[in-house]
C-alpha cells in the first residue's frame, strides 16, 4: 500500500442474506483528498461506509484502513481504530438529550482525561470552525437541519480524526446551507489534512468540492475519475447520472410484462 493511501478496498463483497449488495469493489483513497461515492438509491454506497467503519463484515475481500485490515480486528482494536474516524450521518444523529456543547464534548469526555476548562476551549474552537460558537447552549431540537449537520460536523472532528465519512450530507438542505456544508467539507479537509468520503446523490454540489469520484452501480464500480473527467464522460451511465436524464442504462420503467398485455389490448389489435 503506497504511503499516501489511507484506505484500500480489494475485491470487496457484501450480501444481505443471499442478496448481493457489493460484488467485488476495488478502490484506493489517498490522504488529504475529498472523494465522492455516487450511485442510485440502494446501490450500496452506505454499505461501503459501514464496511470501512467495521460496523459490518465483508462476505469477500477486505478494507484496509491505515494499513490495518478492518474486519480482522478484535473489538478493542476496532474501537481504537474508530477513534481515528469521524462520521456525519444523514440527519446529524445528534444526541437529543445533550446540548450542542455536550454533543461536541461527548467524545472528549469519553476518551480523554482532559480538564473541563480545556474541553470547553476545544469545544468552542470546533464550534467556531463550523460557525456555531454562539449556539453552544442550544438543544438539538432548537436547531435547523443545516445547523444540526454543522454541529454534527463539529462533533465528528472533536478528536481530530484522519478520516471523516459523510452519509448524504446535502439531503434536504436549502441552497445556502447546502453550499455552507459543501465549503466546510472542503475547508476542513484542507486545513486539518484529513481525508473525506462523501456519499451523495447531489452531483452538481459535490463535483464542485471533490477531488475524485467513484460511481457504484449493480454492486461494482461503474465509473471513476476526476470531476472534469466525470463531467466530460460519454459513458452512458455516468452521462445519465451527471445530467439527471430520465431514461438510460437506469431505466425509467420498472421491469414489467408488455404494456398491451397488461391492458388486455393484444386481442383487440390482433
Amino acid at each position: 500500500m503506497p504511503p499516501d493511501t489511507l484506505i484500500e478496498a480489494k475485491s470487496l463483497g457484501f450480501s444481505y442474506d443471499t442478496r448481493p449488495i457489493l460484488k467485488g469493489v476495488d478502490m484506493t483513497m489517498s490522504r488529504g483528498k475529498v472523494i465522492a461515492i455516487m450511485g442510485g438509491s440502494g446501490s450500496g454506497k452506505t454499505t461501503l461506509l459501514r464496511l470501512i467503519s467495521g460496523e459490518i463484515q465483508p462476505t469477500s475481500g477486505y478494507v484496509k484502513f491505515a494499513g490495518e485490515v478492518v474486519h480482522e480486528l478484535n473489538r478493542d482494536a476496532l474501537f481504537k481504530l474508530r477513534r481515528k474516524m469521524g462520521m456525519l450521518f444523514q440527519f446529524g444523529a445528534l444526541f437529543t438529550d445533550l446540548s450542542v456543547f455536550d454533543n461536541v464534548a461527548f467524545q472528549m469526555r469519553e476518551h480523554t482525561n482532559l480538564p473541563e476548562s480545556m474541553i470547553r476551549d476545544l469545544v468552542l474552537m470546533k464550534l467556531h470552525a463550523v460557525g456555531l460558537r454562539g449556539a453552544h447552549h442550544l438543544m438539538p431540537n432548537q436547531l435547523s437541519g443545516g445547523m444540526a449537520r454543522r454541529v454534527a460536523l463539529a462533533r465528528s472532528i472533536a478528536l481530530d480524526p484522519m478520516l471523516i465519512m459523510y452519509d448524504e450530507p446535502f439531503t434536504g438542505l436549502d441552497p445556502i446551507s447546502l453550499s455552507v456544508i459543501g465549503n466546510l467539507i472542503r475547508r476542513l479537509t484542507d486545513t486539518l489534512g484529513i481525508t473525506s468520503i462523501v456519499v451523495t446523490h447531489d452531483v452538481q454540489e459535490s463535483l464542485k468540492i471533490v477531488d475524485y469520484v467513484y460511481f457504484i452501480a449493480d454492486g461494482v464500480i461503474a465509473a471513476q475519475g476526476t470531476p472534469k473527467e466525470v463531467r466530460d464522460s460519454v459513458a452512458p451511465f455516468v452521462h445519465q447520472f451527471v445530467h439527471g436524464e430520465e431514461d438510460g442504462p437506469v431505466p425509467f420503467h420498472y421491469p414489467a410484462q408488455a404494456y398491451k398485455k397488461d391492458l388486455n389490448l393484444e386481442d383487440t389489435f390482433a
Partner: protein
Amino acid sequence: MPKRIVASIQHIGHRVIESIWRLGRATRFFILVLLKSGTSLRRFGLVIRELYFTGVLSLIIIVVSGLFVGMVLGLQGYETLQKYGSESAVGTLVALSLVRELGPVVAALLFASRAGSAITAEIGLMKATEQLAAMGLMAVDPIARVVAPRFWSGVISMPFLAAMFSVMGVFGGYLVTVVFIGVDEGSFWSQMQSAVDFRFDILNGFIKSCFFGVAVTAIAVFEGYDAPPTAEGVSGATTRTVVTSSLVILGLDFILTAFMFRGVS
C-alpha cells in the same frame, strides 16, 4: 383443506420458533447488559441522572395511586369487618395487603407503564435516529453508555417506589378509617404493628419489588434496543413493554408468593 391445515401448522411453528429466537436474543442481551455494567458503576453519575427520569418523575403517579388504593382498601375493609365487630383490624388488613401484594405489584405495573414505556421509546428513538450507531462509531459502546445506566436506575428505583406506594396506601387507609369514619386510632396502629412481620412481610415485599424492578427494566431496555427503527417499530415496542411487563409481573408475583408465604399464617 389439508393445505390450509398445513399452512396454519406452519404459521404456528414460525411463531413458536420466532418467539424462542426472541427469548434467546433477550437473554443474550440481558447478560451483555450485566457484563457491560462496569461503566455505570464507575461513573455512577450516569445512573443518578437516569434515576431522576425513572424514579423521581414516577413519584407523582405512585404517591397519588398509593393514596387512593389505600383509601379504597380502608373503606372496603371497614365495610366488611364492621359486620363482625372487628373494624379495629382494618389497619392490619390495609397494611398486610399493601406490604405483601399491592405495594410491589401495583407499583410495578404503574412503573412499567410510566417509566418502562419511556425507556423503550427513548432507546428505540435513539436507534431510529441513528444516535446509537453514531455512538458506536465514536468507539463508545451504546449498551454500556445508554442501556446499562437506564437498567440500573430502574432496578434501584423500583423498591423505593413500592415502599412509597405502601406508605401512602397505609396513610390513605388511616385517613378514611380513622379520620373520616372514626375507627379507634390506637387499635388501628397497634394491631398493624403486632400483625406486620419484618422478615415475612416487609422483607418479602422488598424482595418482590427487586425482582419486578429487574424484570420490567430488562424488558423495557431490550424492547427499545430490539425495536425496528421506524415509527411503527418504536410504538409496537412500547406497547409490548407494557403488556409483557404486566404479564411477567403478575406471573412472577404468583411464583414468588408461593415460595415466600408457604406456611405463614
